[in-house]
């Protein structure tokens, strides 16, 4: 307990815990929409596509100016989302191929730009590769403020457009029939996912960001059946995993924050898949066993009946 108090007393740990919990909450809320819209892997593409943007931001700013790096990431993320949209709309290629193309090509451009920066020998360049894995310990007060502002903005947008987002998520056809600007709403959802991804890069990095989006939503979906419940629960689970993961990672050397948080939230998913009432694997297995036992009993008793009294026409012994 004293270890916990000591940890929470540290300034850096406080910041990281708050940041990770915030990120978990934001990505949990937005991930719910992404998962329900079957766009789980879009987050993966967006986060990989942020790399060239981060590099461009660095090249323009000349040093690690966080605002410009994030703006760059947002721009290339948006471009990648547009690329996916054009490919799926205008060609016969399937969504997964479009996602893979955007992911790998934008990332490739990013690695090229990374070497451009490294060859210029800038001191801050080393910090850029932390965007691959995130660097929670380097988080500052300003970063937290930025995340908080982004979180409040995202929450406001989701609350304001709740009904519209709901309809677009579950039934885009009738949303279109009702005269809603479906394209614009879907783009807005994608854009705020990109914002969340960009916010998360600093903490968990490009590769693990996809888990922050999908896992809380997938876990929450197992426990509740309504969108509101799912969004709230996913936000809570994300915050829980983020905060406690950051705490655990502070206890030991070599326990990077991103991987610990992702392993925690993956464990939550595993438990949810197994135990969730009515849906979970164990629940269904027990229900199936009960059913088969009942069926065996019934068929046995009906067989007894047949043998004794009831002649079944056309059935030869």
């Amino acid at each position, binding site marked *: 307990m004293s270890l916990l108090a000591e940890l929470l007393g540290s300034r850096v740990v406080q910041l990281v815990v708050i940041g990770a919990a915030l990120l978990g909450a934001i990505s949990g809320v937005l991930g719910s929409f992404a998962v329900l819209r079957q766009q789980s*892997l879009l987050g993966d593409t967006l986060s*990989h596509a942020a790399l060239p943007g981060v590099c461009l931001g660095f090249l323009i700013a000349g040093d690690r100016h966080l605002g410009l790096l994030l703006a760059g990431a947002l721009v290339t993320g948006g471009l990648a989302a547009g690329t996916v949209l054009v490919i799926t709309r205008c060609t016969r290629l399937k969504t*997964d*191929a479009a996602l893979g193309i955007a*992911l790998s090509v934008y990332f490739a451009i990013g*690695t090229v730009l990374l070497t451009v920066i490294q060859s210029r020998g800038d001191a801050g360049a080393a910090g850029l590769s932390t965007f691959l894995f995130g660097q929670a310990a380097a988080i500052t007060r300003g970063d937290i403020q930025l995340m908080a502002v982004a979180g409040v903005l995202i929450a406001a947008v989701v609350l304001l457009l709740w009904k519209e987002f709901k309809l677009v998520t579950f039934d885009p056809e009738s949303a279109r029939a009702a005269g809603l600007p479906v394209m614009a709403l879907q783009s807005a959802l994608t854009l705020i996912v990109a914002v969340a991804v960009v916010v998360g890069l600093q903490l968990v990095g490009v590769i693990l960001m*996809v888990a922050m989006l999908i*896992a809380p939503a997938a876990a929450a979906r197992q426990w509740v059946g309504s969108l509101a419940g799912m969004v709230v629960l996913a936000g809570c689970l994300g915050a829980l995993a983020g905060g406690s993961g950051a705490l655990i990672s502070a206890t030991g050397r070599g326990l990077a924050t991103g991987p610990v948080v992702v392993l925690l939230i993956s464990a939550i998913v595993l438990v949810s898949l197994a135990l969730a009432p009515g849906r979970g*694997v164990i629940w269904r297995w027990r229900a199936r066993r009960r059913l088969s036992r009942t069926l065996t009993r019934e068929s046995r008793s009906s067989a007894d009946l047949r043998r004794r009294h009831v002649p079944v026409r056309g059935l030869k012994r």
Partner: protein
Amino acid sequence: MITASILITGMLAAASAALLGTFLVLRGSAMLSDAISHSIVFGIILVWLVTRQLSGPIPVIGAALAGVLTVVLTQWIAQSRLVRMDAAIGLVFPALFAAGVLLISLYARQVHIHVDTILLGEIGFVWLNTRPIAGFEVPVSTLTLGLVLLANLLFVAAFWHRLKLAVFDPALAAALGLFPTALYYALMTLTSITAVAAFDAVGAILFIAFVIVPPATAYLLTQRVWLMTLLAVALGALACPVGYALAVFWDVSIAGMMATMTGVWFALALLFSPRQGLLVQALQRRQETLRHDCRVMLAHLLSHQGTRRMPQENTRAALVGHLSWPESHADRVIEHAIGQDLVEQRGALLILRPAGEAAARDLFARR
């Protein structure tokens, strides 16, 4: 010699990846290659913890098994129908990747495993680890990739028809007793092995580019599977010398530039593909609009022909005013109709030619 070894290694990696990628793209499982290539980090570190080996056949097998494990887990979660396939992919590989990164930072700090090397690769260093063969110093990764390409070629050649059927109609393949599921896992195993063999040359993430992008490019250019496979391999291989030359010229990442070139091929195909390119589609749409509006004009002219308002209606001004066409569009439509000898212009008046009148009557008769 170094240049040659880099080029050959890159082209071998590109060819092996594109060969399998063709079927992954056709099947709609392209993103599984993304998952596999990330998960091999987990396999590599696990094998190192047990055997303390980083290169050789055992780490390759171990890492490939991690790739297969990813596919099995993903399939298993998706089959429970609790989450969809794409979410299942996004749940499994980050967990394995996170476990791998954590194991490395806990137990393998002092060792030469850098996760960013695994992810980004450094093809410029392939010649550092060589083995003498027939008097030449051949890089080990080149050798491995050569063997992998051979295995992939044999697999695709041996199961060509079955693969095609399993990709396009898995239900029929299963009904015919062709074991599409077994074939699928074989394909995934080979993809994992290729990913492991390729990662120290091109890196795990750029490997995805070679798996997905050249086949997708070829898919835009042809409708035949054999041609698509050939084109994919050729386009992937072609990206290597071009990418290498540009990388040397600009002094940037070689593997990154090679992968970027596959993206350039794709962009070119997307724009200029003779049948499905965006340019052709736009032209077709324009042509279609022109033909359609020409018919609209003929109908308009016919319905007002011989009426009192004909002098006002059957003019260019009416097309602009009543049909609210932009002037340039009205001019194009009229020009098109005159060119087809459907309409002639007498002063301001537009008069139907016999062919135009017949076409217009035909339009009304069809109703």
